């Protein structure tokens, strides 16, 4: 059982690596494509995983940002993410993790309530976005946001650290949901 740690390797030259974790392969692939389409100065690497832990025998670059994608239409999606969270080092949550809820647009298909995901994100003090990844325009916008975040997490933006961004995001966040 390997635990994923931030800054465990020296960075590659001008590269930023993101890890997308989620049980919906197709959606992750589409999101990854959209992110790679984004125009930016750094070289982007996108890794996809169904769940953590990652296999330990593979040589992979330093991971700068983990995005947990939760599909609100499936109970297992949340379960996978919750289990995966146990394989992430605590220092990763200092701005290098974010949650992405998808499918909130089609409310009658939702099995998970938004508040459930909101609570999870609040527990791990990490930002949460909602975005319907099936809609191309929304996905492109989300990809743009994630790329910006990734560049900050990878240290390619001068003067802003991941923790810095996290504290900035927190101020605009809605107050934590009441205990159910």
């Amino acid at each position, binding site marked *: 059982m390997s635990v994923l740690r931030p800054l465990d*390797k020296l960075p590659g030259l001008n590269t930023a690596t993101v890890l997308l974790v989620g049980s919906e392969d197709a959606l992750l692939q589409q999101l990854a494509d959209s992110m790679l389409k984004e125009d930016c100065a750094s070289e982007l690497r996108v890794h996809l995983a169904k769940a953590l832990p990652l296999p330990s025998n593979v040589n992979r670059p330093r991971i700068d940002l983990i995005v947990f994608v939760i599909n609100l239409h499936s109970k297992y999606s949340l379960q996978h993410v*919750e289990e995966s969270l*146990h394989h992430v080092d*605590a220092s990763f949550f200092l701005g290098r993790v974010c949650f992405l809820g998808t499918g909130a647009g089609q409310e009658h298909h939702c099995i998970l309530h938004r508040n459930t995901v909101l609570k999870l994100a609040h*527990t*791990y*003090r990490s930002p949460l976005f909602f975005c319907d990844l099936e809609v191309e325009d929304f996905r492109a916008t989300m990809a743009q946001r994630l790329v910006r975040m990734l560049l900050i997490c990878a240290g390619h933006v001068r003067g802003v650290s991941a*923790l*810095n961004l996290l*504290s900035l995001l927190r101020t605009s966040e809605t107050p934590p949901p009441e205990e159910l």
Partner: protein
Amino acid sequence: MSVSQQDLDPDSTTDVEVVTDTEEELIKECEEIWKDMEECQNKLSLTGTETLTNSNAQLSLLIMQVKCLTAELSQWHKETPEITPLTEDVLITLGTEEFQKLRHDLEMVLSTIQSKNEKLKEDLEREQQWLDEQQQIMESLNTLYSELKNQFVTFSETRIFSELKTKMLNIKAFKEKLLSTLGEFLEDHFPLPDGNVKKKKKNVQESTKQLITLHEILEILINRLFDVPHDPYVKISDSFWPPYIELLLRNGIALRHPEDPTRLRLEAFHQ
């Protein structure tokens, strides 16, 4: 970077030396930074890992956040911003890069606008062609319209007129024929009395000379009826042969005036 630098000043050898010096300096600086990073990385790898459970996550994360933010803050306080040495060639290199970037962007804008222009030109041409076609259609329709209009006019005025004319002529001819046939009939079957009737010959010998034919009597009656419709009665004169008057009255062709027996009129067949 070095390539662009040498492109910039290919002739001056002294500049090249200076450039290589600055380049070496920069590379040295980078090497030092990389060494620092490696040291830090070593230190980092020594720290243990810690995973979270749902229950302790919030508290420990908040504590960590406070620690890290405090550390970051003190780091910002301590740090004095360093900038790369602003020597001439560094500035030139940076400026060149910036200009090249700008040029690239501007070229892109130019090509975009050119392609847009071309597209607009094509659109214009297409629209023009379309307009021409429409105008041609309009023209041909107009000519067609005017032709039809002319046809209509000739049809309505001349043709109908001539048709009516021929019809009228036919009818006139038919009328003439009818009249002459009727006249012949009257002449053949209702001649003026001659000297066959001896009794009357003596009595009315004087007046027989002035007698008129049945044909003429009918004509007088008809003319009277149509010329003076409000008073169609005709005075019976001596020139009317009485048997013929009797014939007309008996057959209901003529009517006597209800108060004046000396006058009679034609039955109004036409009403």
